[in-house]
Structure formats: C-alpha cells, structure tokens
C-alpha cells in the first residue's frame, strides 16, 4: 500500500461519520424537518457508543447504543418541541446543539482518560480489493463504511422507486396536500426525525469506535455542521452524499497527514481547510445552482411547521 493509498483510505474512513449524519439529516429534510443540531446528536452517539463499547467490550453494541442514544435524544429534545408543539425548527435545533454538547460532556466526564484498545478492524472484500489502486482504498475498510454506502444506495432507491419514497417527498414538498391525500404527516415526521437521530448517533459512534478510539467533549469538532452543509452541497441526493462525504473526509485528514509528513505549512492552516473548503464549496454550489436554473431538490416546505387544520 502506497502512502497515497493509505492516506486516501483514511480519508474514506474519516468521511464515514459525515456520511451517516448527513444521510440522517437528509431524510429528515425530505419530510420537511430542518435540524441544525446535528453536532449535539453526534456527540450523544459518540459518548454513549464509546462508554457502552468499553463496558460491554463489544463494538457492535456500542454502535447500536450510540444510535439508540441519538434516537432518544432527538425524539425528546427536537421532535417533541417541533412536531408536537410546533416550535420554530431553527431555534430548537440550536438548543439541541447546546443540550447535546452539555449532556454528552456530563455523561462522559469520567471517560476522557479511557481509550479503546482496538476499533473496528478492516474487512477486505474479496476480489474487489484486488482492483488496482482503488481496491486498497475503498475495499479494505471496516464494515460500517460499507454499511454506510449500502444505506445511501438503499435510500436513493427508496426515495426514487417506492411508494413510501414518493410519500416522503410529498410531505416535504407540500404537507397540506400530503395530508389531504391520506398520508399521516406527523407520524412520518416523528419517524424520520428518529431515524435521523439514529444515524447521527451512529455517525458519532463510528467516530469514537473506528477513528479516534477515545472520547473528549470536542471530539466531533464541527462535523455535525459540516454534515449539515453537505446535504445542501449534495443537492439532497443520497448518492452524491457518498462521494461528498469521502471528499470532506480527505480534507479532515489533511492536518494529521501533513503533520506526520513534516509539511512546511503550519498545522493550524491545514486544520482550517475542511471548514474553508465547506464554505467555499457551498458558495460555489449555490452560485452554480442559481446560474444553471436547474430545479433544486430542496424540499419546498423545508422548515415550515405543519399544522393540521383541526386541533
């Protein structure tokens, strides 16, 4: 394995938490829910996943516990105020971030000095890993990476080719019409905010269980916000999310990579790159979308509170 291949393989792994979180957020947005609190949800998954993995000595249980923590946390802190009480989504999302940061730090107070002996091991996919160059990058990864990609493909297929996918899109486009057509709008909004909580939690857990192998209260370092931007960048297309996430994974790995190889650029500048890159790409993407006039797949009713006419 060459140095470049190793670096790119690390980038794919680093992009995986982003992929999970962004997929979750995208599904929530498809049913009209904008949740900017991803960072808090990821942190909850990261800390609970880490603790459970150490206590049970099982990475799989840790991953599932992270997802469960994300789900419960999101349902209580986001879904209930937004879907049931119909509060403003932006404000609640902001609060979710705060609460997630505070709560995860409290939960993890005594765990910052612990670390996992080993994370998820690589699973080499037979034959595929023999493909020159890319084989070693893409197909010698821990299984959550493959699962994330498969999930993205499944979501893309589901949105495009199933009745349920059409119903989801209808909710995000026009909840009133969807309701009139007999779709249970609040139910699916609750369901998919739970799903997005689960995936953000899993994303956080992948971070602590496969990448950092330890926990600190700043472990996500803005990944939740990057994931939020990725959804826009990918234009609400699940498959575009895959390569976008891996691309941003590469950005995230620049600082440690540069440091390890003694690059002349000071490491703070390398650490800036993912954020600068996200911002620049977002600007270019928006500018391009405006110029091309191609219809955006952004759900028309995103962020709009659905109120059934009866109370």
């Amino acid at each position, binding site marked *: 394995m060459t140095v470049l291949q190793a670096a790119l393989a690390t980038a794919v792994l680093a992009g995986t938490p982003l992929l999970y979180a962004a997929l979750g957020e995208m599904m929530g947005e498809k049913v009209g829910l904008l949740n900017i609190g991803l960072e808090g949800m990821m942190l909850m998954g990261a800390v609970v996943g880490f603790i459970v993995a150490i206590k049970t000595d099982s990475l799989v249980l840790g991953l599932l516990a992270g997802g469960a923590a994300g789900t419960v946390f999101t349902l209580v802190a986001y879904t209930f105020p937004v879907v049931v009480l119909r509060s403003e989504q932006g404000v609640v999302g902001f609060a979710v971030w705060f609460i997630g940061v505070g709560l995860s730090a409290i939960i993890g107070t005594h765990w910052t000095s612990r670390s996992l002996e080993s994370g998820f091991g690589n699973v080499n996919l037979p034959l595929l890993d023999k493909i020159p160059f890319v084989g070693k990058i893409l197909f010698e990864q821990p299984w959550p990476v493959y699962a994330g990609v498969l999930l993205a493909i499944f979501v893309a297929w589901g949105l*495009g*080719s199933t009745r349920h996918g059409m*119903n989801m899109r*209808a909710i995000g486009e026009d909840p009133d019409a*969807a309701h*009139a*057509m*007999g779709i249970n709008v609040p139910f699916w909004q609750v369901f998919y905010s739970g799903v997005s909580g689960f995936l953000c939690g899993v994303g956080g857990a992948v971070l602590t269980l496969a990448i950092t192998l330890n926990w600190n209260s700043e472990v996500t370092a803005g990944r939740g916000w990057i994931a939020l931007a990725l959804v826009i960048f990918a234009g609400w297309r699940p498959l575009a999310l895959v390569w976008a996430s891996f691309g941003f994974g590469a950005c995230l790995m620049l600082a440690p990579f540069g440091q390890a190889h003694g690059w002349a650029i000071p490491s703070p500048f390398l650490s800036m790159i993912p954020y600068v890159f996200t911002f620049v790409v977002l600007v270019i993407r928006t500018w391009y979308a405006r110029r091309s006039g191609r219809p955006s797949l952004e759900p028309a009713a995103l962020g709009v509170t659905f109120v059934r*006419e009866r109370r």
Partner: protein
Amino acid sequence: MSPATPDNGVGTVPGGASSPPGTAALELTGIVKSFGSQRALDGVNFELRGGEVHTLLGENGAGKTTLMNIASGMLRADAGSIAVDGKKVSIPTPAVAMSYGIGMVHQHYRLVERLTVAENLAIGWHETPRVVSRGALVDWAAEVCDRYGLQVEPRAAVDTLSAGERQRVAIVRALSRGARILILDEPTALLTPHEADALFENVRRMAGEGHGVVFISHKLREVMEISDRISVLRGGQLVATLARADAEVRELARMTVATDVPDVPVERASKSGRPILVATGASVGDHDEGRLHEIDLEIREHEVLGVAGVSGNGQVQLAELLTGTCEHDSGTVTQFEGGEAVNPTKGVGHIPEHHSQGLALAASLEFNAVLRSITKPPLRRGLVISRRRLRTAARELVDRAGLKKLQVQRPAGTLSGGQMQRLLVHRELDAGSRLLVAVHPTRGLDVAATNHVQMELLAARDRGVAVVLISEDLDEVLEMSDRIVVLYEGRIAGELARPEFDRNRLGLLMGGAA
C-alpha cells in the same frame, strides 16, 4: 404486483360500487363547526343521492367549503353526524373519507407541485404498488387516466400544467381511489369558459355512471346549468334545498344574500382623464411561466380599468409592473402626474392578491398600518421617525378600516381574513393618490364589505385616481370598469370600451379563442 397490467385491482371500476340512484349516499345531519368565537356552520343538514349533481350555493364565507371539508375528513365537526349509505360513520381523516368512497377535489386541487402527475396519482394510496420503477409508474398512471377518460401526460410535473389539466389530475386521483361521492369545490373558478364546458360534460357523465357529485359554487349561471338539486347556504345555515325545476335565478340570488344590498352606482362620468401610466412594448420575466410579452397599455386618471383573465396569465406580474415593484426587461413604462413624468412608486397603492403579500402577519397592526407612510413626511423627518405621529396615524387608519375595537399592538396575523383585507384596502386607498392597483380586492369579503370596498374604489376614481381592477370575477369587472383589457398568456388579448362590453366575447378572449 406488476403495475402495468390492467386487472390488478388498482382502482375500482367506475360506478361498480355506487349507491342505487335516488337513495341517500351521503347524509350530514346537524353539523356545527366553530373557528374560535366565530360559528362557521350552525346545525346544517345536507343530503346527497347517488347519481345526482347537488349544488351547494352561497356567498364566500357561507360555509360551503367548511361543510364539505367535514365530509371529506379535512376538518372535524363540533357536533352533528355523518352517514354514508344510511350507516352512521365517523370521518376523522381524509384517508377514512376515501375508504368510504368520498373524494374531494379542492379549489386549488392540493396537488404536490413539483412531483409528476403519475406521482401525484400514486402518493398516499394503499393500492399503489409498494415498489415501482419510474417507467412502470408512468404506464400505470397512463392506464388510470385512460380508464376515466381524462387525458394528462403522466410524466409532466404538476407545476407545468394548466389549471384545467391540474383539475383533471385531481379528479382522476379521487375517482381512482374509488370515490363514489365526488366533491368539487368551486371547480370553475380557475378555468376558462371552454375548460369549464369540458368539465360540465365530465360531471354529467360521472353522474350518469351513478356517482353522487357535490358541486360547490357561487355562480348562479352555472348552477342552473349543471344541478339536479340546489342547497343554499347563508351565514353557516341552510336556507333551502330545491330541485332545479323549482329554482329560479332571481329567487336564488335573493336567498344567498341576507338583505337587499344597494347596487353599486354605475353612473359613468365621461371625463377623459390625462394619462397616469403609459407602457409601450413592456416585457417582464425570462421564463415562460408568469411572463409578460410586449404590453402596450395606457392608464388614465378618472377611470377604472378592468383586467380580466384566468389567474396565472400574468396578472401578478402586471400588478408589479404597474406598481413599479418589478423591472421590465424591454420596452418602456412611464408614469405621469399632472402631465409630468414622475417616479414610478409615487402615489401608488397596491392591494395584493393575498393578504400575506401586503401584511407582516407576525408584526403589530400599528407597523402594518404605517407600512406605506413611514418612509415619508410627516412620520419621517430626516432619519428620525416620530413615534407620536406614528401612533396617531396608525390608530386613525385602523379605526377607519372598521377595526375600532382592536388594539394596535396585536399581531396582524390574528385578524380574520376579512379584517385583514379591510386594513389592506384602506391603507392602500391612502397610499394610492395617483394610481391604485387592486388585485381581487373583494375576495373573501361578505356582501356588505364587498359593496363597501367597491364604493371606495369608485370614490377614488371620482377623485381622479386611476384604478386598475384585476379580478377573476367577471361580474365584478363588468360592473365596475370603464374599460376592460383581457390578459391571456402574458399578452393583452383584447381591449373593450364600456359600450362594447360583452360577456361572451370576454369569455372567448380569456380562453385565447379570439
């Protein structure tokens, strides 16, 4: 399950499950519904038989739509009962209504704009195949459309369709879900006369196949044409139910309005005013929808210019062009005052199509009342705004709009539709000292308020203001205007002076057929 094969149980055979003609398919008894303190329905009884077209006739706000929203599960009644085929049922959601064979085609169709026709037919329906490729879905949708004899391109996104096509989609959607009772809410409101004729044919055919059709309308002419029976609603109460044979137009008109309302005086001053606005070859917009093409128009003081046309043919853009709030891409628009060219926004009032366009619903009444005047003296002096004058001016306007009891700090969004419209109209009457563009100024108002607004518009005209009345309501346009232009697909299709007014000719122009 392959969606492409016809006999797979998707949809039901039309008429197959319909009630025998003559028996009650749907019975609403003693329906009561309140919104806040306002009672929208007050113990209404309604009965629909299989195979009949039963019209609900009444003014805006009489409760027609509310009643049918209760029957279709969109709203829940406070009291009263619903029976389908003689069995008492409860209809909490639209999905349940559908399972009883009740389908409603809403006034604005409630289609998902950016989904395709096929997708709109498929969403939320348990007989849509769970997994379906795009190609198979299109075939399935085409087959469904075929079955009901209503042709629409299944691949087209709904936002590219005309009003008539959208309505066909909505009707097919209701029928394909086994609707035996079809509720059509103001179905002709957005249609050209030709599209309306086609609709009537379909309605008769559906009734002939045994469907019960509820036809909601406030247009007497079409009611007399299509109905078997007519129920008149007024102020949330049922006035009468009669067979068409027993109905007579003048009598129906009298029943829909509570009291005799004085007619708007149609005295025509023949003052030939000076031009206020001259547009030459003005074009707006860069894509097809909502474009204005090379508009030539002269608007004069002392004149009401009516703009007729089916909505969506450029009315919104025309209003913005005239009020100087959108740029034209080519041609010239010059505005005058007393013969001198002036800034296009000076002395212009604009009553917009929807309240939400002209009111900040989350902000106070006070803010909304001074929205137009705050940037000008006397409220503003230099950079500073006088709070005292602002308060006085706001209170005065709110009082004049007939909202004396309301506190000015209350959010505008808590007002009823009619109250909002009154506030808007009065504010814009003040602002429009030179030109007043009124888009559907009486929509959503009761008869007395409608009358009041029309009088105010004519009074403004008599003061010398140029009034542009953009309305879907042909009767209103005919009654109020000194001159009428017809908009069709963003062009001025024709212009008629008052002596040439002719309903049929206008209808042809509106449909692009002349």
